[in-house]
């Protein structure tokens, strides 16, 4: 049965991350799913590109300059999102992931709302993100929060770049 306990969002500066945050398994699931969707599925974390394995094995170092939001239900981490340190005054949102067992319960909405609030508090003029074009659900969520498709800053095909003015 699905856990119906309330989901809360915990904000962690990258350097304050610990193994207890439960971020590793969420990032692993995110990257494995993404590689599969890109048409290059891998069997396990060991087969992921180095930069992704580094995030999973040592998120504290990988996101040292960033803010990591973790959604928790009871004692378990059920979702995550990373807000990068601003570049050109605009932080970037990435690694939005919800444990499939907790989807449709507002986990990502909570994370995204907290990320936008954090970006606004930090004085950023806008926040941006990129999302694979086939992730229509995530795109709908971003658009519901006011993100609009903008000129791409990433040359990878099928990557949709979005921005929200704060």
């Amino acid at each position, binding site marked *: 049965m699905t856990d119906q306990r309330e989901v809360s969002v915990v904000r962690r500066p990258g350097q304050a991350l610990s193994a207890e945050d439960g971020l590793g398994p969420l990032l692993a699931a995110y990257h494995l799913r993404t590689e599969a969707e890109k048409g290059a599925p891998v069997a396990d974390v060991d087969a992921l590109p180095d930069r992704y394995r580094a995030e999973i094995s040592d998120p504290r170092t990988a996101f040292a300059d960033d803010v990591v939001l973790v959604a928790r239900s009871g004692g378990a981490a059920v979702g995550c999102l990373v807000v990068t340190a601003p570049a050109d005054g605009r932080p970037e949102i990435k690694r*939005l992931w919800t444990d499939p067992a907790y*989807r449709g319960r507002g986990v990502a909405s909570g994370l995204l709302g907290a990320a936008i609030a954090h970006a606004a508090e930090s004085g950023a003029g806008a926040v941006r993100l990129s999302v694979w074009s086939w992730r*229509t*659900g995530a795109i*709908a*969520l971003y658009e*519901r929060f006011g993100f609009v498709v903008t000129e791409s800053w990433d040359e990878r095909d099928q990557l949709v770049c979005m921005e929200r003015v704060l």
Partner: protein
Amino acid sequence: MSDQRWVREASRVTWEAMSRSEHAAVVRAVRKGEPTRDPTTALLALHWAWAVIGPPGARRRYPWQAALLDVRPTAFLTDIYDGDPRNDVRTYVRRDARRVEAANLPFLESLDT
């Protein structure tokens, strides 16, 4: 020509290129409380709905006189879900647009988030 009501110009072009029966299929589903199961079409329909009623946080207001246009007989002869602003003022088009949002947005968000 670009239409500022749409969150994406590409969606407007694609929606307008769809047939009357494709539009009708979207509306038939949401009238039963069901989303469009194809995610790409569901997102496209959501964009149409937001063009009609405005996206969350920026809802569109229509003058009350707009309701009078509902009686135009052409409603039975043309595709009133084609995204033409002259059709979007109809109260039942707006009602169906709200149904599209109510059915498709939670469905889409549950796929990835």
